């Protein structure tokens, strides 16, 4: 039986289920052994999608241990975590068949209460049966109290049968203020490992079996073909895109699955055979150059098609634009100018009497290096300055009615105009001399588009 208290067959099944994690599984089986002396706390760490949580959970389930698994990211506050911990422990004990925990109904306000509850729940248990408490993603907990982690690491001092596992991404050196905590590192998968894992499940080439072109092509042949083609395809994706930008398993698999239907489209269409990998690769090389597949979007663009129909997409997008009202555009333009032009140059740019353009500073450029204002954060301006600029840039007279103020309110609710000052959107709206800014969504490109829509040469009014 060796050091691991788990039967070898079980370990083998686990290794089969979680490939390339043999070392970690072996370490886990030692560190979490039910009979050997074990450390009070283990830190399991590793970057995204390296199987930390799944392997730990899979191991605990397979070894039939009583454990509570708490997903910290579901918790809103530190207190929420404590309450959920108690609830999870109670549930685990109930599942384990322990008595006396039927109606355990209480609150858990702070860490000492947690210790109390855990003592009450766990101390009565027979000696030798250990309880494992797993905190998954403890570093992502919102509003965590600063004493939480060290306290969790020391729970064993009060409850000898308890063992804590903390799963997190990047441990800092003095995380627990406690020496001698074993750290179990889940290494990122290498290229070989990633490809090995991905090739265990290969997606279908043909949507229907048998394909309409070839009735004799049966499922067995298809199985063989796809498990031949898919690993090669994955390797190509890894070398072109994945290695640099989608290293972790999940995003890499996503990228592969997104590209796959487009990649095999010629095979489905019958232009290439299923084994013509190199020719297919050459003809579809555009897929591997387009980095758009790495970007995430709420809208599912579906599979990437070989003929990137960007034009059609643009046309479709165009139909859905809802235009802002006419004066809202002007207001935004004025607000942008007010935010990005220094107030002292207003007389130069917006006085009706001064001739624009000629006032531009001629002669040699200044020696001082300045950052273009467009690249800086927008400056705040009082509302009256906005209205003055609006009156100055409008090609016709404006009858200032309550509608203009309504527009300001509407734009504020859309976050295109933002009240600046204490607390961002806070402060009294009616406070005299309140300052405003343009919102983050109002970029230079956006403003250029607006200006084009109302035929306004915004460039002439921008200070250099």
């Amino acid at each position, binding site marked *: 039986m060796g050091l691991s208290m788990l039967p070898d067959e079980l370990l083998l099944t686990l290794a089969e289920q979680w490939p390339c994690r043999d070392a970690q599984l072996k370490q886990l089986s030692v560190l979490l052994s039910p009979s050997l002396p074990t450390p009070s706390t283990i830190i399991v760490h590793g970057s995204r999608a390296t199987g930390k949580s799944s392997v730990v959970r899979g191991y605990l389930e397979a070894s039939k241990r009583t454990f509570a698994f708490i997903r910290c990211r579901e918790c809103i506050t530190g207190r929420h975590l404590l309450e959920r911990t108690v609830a999870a422990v109670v549930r685990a004990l109930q599942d384990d068949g322990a008595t006396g925990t039927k109606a355990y*109904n209480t609150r858990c306000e702070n860490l000492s209460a947690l210790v109390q509850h855990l003592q009450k729940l766990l101390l009565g248990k027979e000696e030798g049966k250990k309880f494992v408490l797993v905190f998954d993603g403890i570093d992502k907990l919102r509003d965590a109290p600063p004493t939480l982690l060290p306290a969790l690491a020391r729970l064993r001092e009060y409850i000898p049968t308890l063992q804590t596992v903390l799963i997190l991404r990047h441990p800092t050196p003095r995380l627990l203020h406690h020496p001698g905590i074993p750290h179990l590192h889940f290494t990122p998968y290498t290229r070989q490992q990633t490809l090995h894992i991905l090739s265990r499940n290969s997606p279908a080439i043909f949507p229907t079996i048998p394909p309409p072109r070839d009735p004799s092509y049966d499922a067995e042949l298809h199985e063989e073909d796809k498990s031949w083609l898919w690993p090669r395809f994955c390797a190509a994706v890894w070398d072109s895109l994945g290695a640099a930008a989608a290293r972790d398993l999940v995003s890499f698999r996503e990228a592969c699955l997104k590209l796959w239907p487009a990649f095999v489209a010629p095979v489905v269409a019958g232009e290439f055979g299923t084994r013509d990998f190199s020719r297919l690769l050459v003809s579809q090389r555009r897929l591997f150059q387009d980095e758009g597949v790495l970007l995430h979007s*709420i*809208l599912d663009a579906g599979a990437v098609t070989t003929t990137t129909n960007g034009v059609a997409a643009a046309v479709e997008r165009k139909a859905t634009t809802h235009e802002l009202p006419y004066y809202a555009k002007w207001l935004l333009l004025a607000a942008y100018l007010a935010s990005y032009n220094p107030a002292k140059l207003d007389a130069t740019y917006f006085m009706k009497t001064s001739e624009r353009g000629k006032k531009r500073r001629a002669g040699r450029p200044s020696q001082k290096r300045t950052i273009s204002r467009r690249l800086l954060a927008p400056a705040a301006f009082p509302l009256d300055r906005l209205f003055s600029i609006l009156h100055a840039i409008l090609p016709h007279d404006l009858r200032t009615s*309550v509608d203009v103020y309504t527009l300001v309110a509407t734009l504020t609710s*859309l976050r*295109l105009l933002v009240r600046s000052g204490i607390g961002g959107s806070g402060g009294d709206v009616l406070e*005299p001399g309140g300052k405003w800014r343009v919102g983050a969504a109002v970029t230079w490109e956006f403003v250029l588009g607006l200006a084009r829509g109302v035929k306004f040469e915004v460039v002439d009014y921008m200070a250099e």
Partner: protein
Amino acid sequence: MEYETCYVFEPEQQRPAKRRKIDFQGLQASWPIRQVAYEKAWTAQLRGIDKKLAAINAKPIAEISAFLDDVLHSAQQGRVPTAIISTGPDAASQSSIFNALSSLEGSKSKRTLVQLSASTGTNLKALLKSIIQKATTRAEDHDEDDEGHMTTKGGSTLLNYDLEILADYVHDHGLRQVVLAFQDTEAFDSTLLSELIEVLSFWHDRIPFVFLFRIATSLESLQSRLSKDAVKCMQGRLFDVATSAEAVEHILEAITDSETLLWIGPGLLSTIVERQNDYIHNTDTLVDALQYALMSNYYANALSIFLDPYVQYKDVPSDHFEAVRHLDSFRTFCEQLLEKKQALRLKDLLEEDEILFGTVRSMVEQGRKALADLVVAVDVVRELQKHLPQQQRAPKSKLYIQALSHKLQDSSQVRSMLLSVRKAPSSTVMHIMDAILALKIPGDIHDRCAEVQKSLTELLGSSDTKQPLRSEDDVKNSTLRTTVVAQKVELSRQKSSLSKQDEAYTAILRRFTDLLEAYFRDTLIAPTDLVFHEIFLYDLKSPHREAFTPRPRHAVERALAAPHDYLDCDCCKPEVGEGDESTLAACQPATAVLYQLYLESGSLINASDLWQAFRAVLGEEQDEGQKQALFQRSLAELDYLGMVKSTRKRVDHVAKVAWKGL
């Protein structure tokens, strides 16, 4: 009574000593009848508008509910299904859509819809709490103690923002979908929204969430605001609702159908439509404006009593007929009658109320019919524009306003349109004729058009070529020839040879355009030429403007800068030659004096200088202490109005905050 926070108001007298006049006098006597007529007219119109708006929204609502059903039946995936509804900045249309959706949800009990807005909560806890509250609709067995705990059926105590409550509820009630509708996505704090989405997506395996986002700007801006993880956990589709311009067109259609009793004139209508375009995209305000126009006419115009189709002669007080006889259009009508030597009829109209009543009723009916015909003519113009290749397609509202203000008849627009009809090949003309016949225009134009089409069909049937016939007027059929004669270049236009059928076709085309021309001449009349147009055409802009676009800032500034305009006092009346510039005077209210001094100064005002100037204006009549008090009160009032504020730059200065005329 300042020491009391509130008190009961007990008037000393129960009723005023003087009896009020309750009976309506004069033209007001018809008011109850008019009110009933207004109610009827407006309910009918509102029904039409609602029908149109519901028809616009029906499509996106059907699409979204189909999406929700789809999600219900498709397999669970890792990402939360999301519907993004792009509505534009119009706040009203989205709420109507969401309300329609929630009423839709009610029928299927396996789904619950929670509406969220940015005001629901400013932090994650509050948002989750209200989501849970709204989704579970707070069943009776959930009691909450003072520390924010809720007890669920299982006996365990949970925090009230714990989504476990919702998960249990979903499990117990067998809910299959929890739809979260974010009404004003833009107004949410970006980080808060991202966090909320992430937290909810963790629970997606236990609670079947679906998100609905209503966005006013664009999807790109939404995505750029959300965190990468939040974007990753959603999988969405974009839905589109009709733009506000389309909604405006539909509403206009509803108020210009043939049943309309009171027509909105071009001036008012263009004001309303422009406001929609320039300031607000909101169908509700448009409907409000229309209702206000109707109310103004029925309530203020005594003659609107004749608009009621069921009004009887005995219901109309006699002074109303006197009022009718004073109408401008009636006078012109009388003159026309005189010219036509119908003096007897004129005498009857002037003397016999009953005859006048009948005339008014029939003339109003005729006028309304003429307006309805005008709208049909506008439709014809639109159909022509749609089918002719070079023509620009104007929105119906614009054409309608042009037609009502009598700018369409003989306009270059219509003339060029008719010219291009003349040049059109037979295939296009067939389409145009079909479209015009489909309009089912009342009057004989329909039959005559059908006649022309019949002859054209016969002609087309007799020709053996598949090519459409060409018109003689088409420039494509003539070639330009250059001949050099005695070192002069001569240009001559040569008509290419046209077949017999083409010539016949040209003749038919001429008949058709003549027909259209005559039709436009007859229908696109000036509504102000119609007799009694004052009764059925309402075109007053000022009530609308006063009610819907007040100018609060301008009013305050004017009151302070030119108090004479409001007080109408003799002392500071501007001289005749001076225009409206009023001068400073001691008799003006102290705040007004101070404000005018304030206008003259720069952005930082020395309080002492201001006081000196103020004292000089007030003169020697008041004693120093009184002047000081007045000054302090005025400055406090300006501060209260938000025009000055103290500044940290200089302690003895105040900063100017508001400039006049903005």
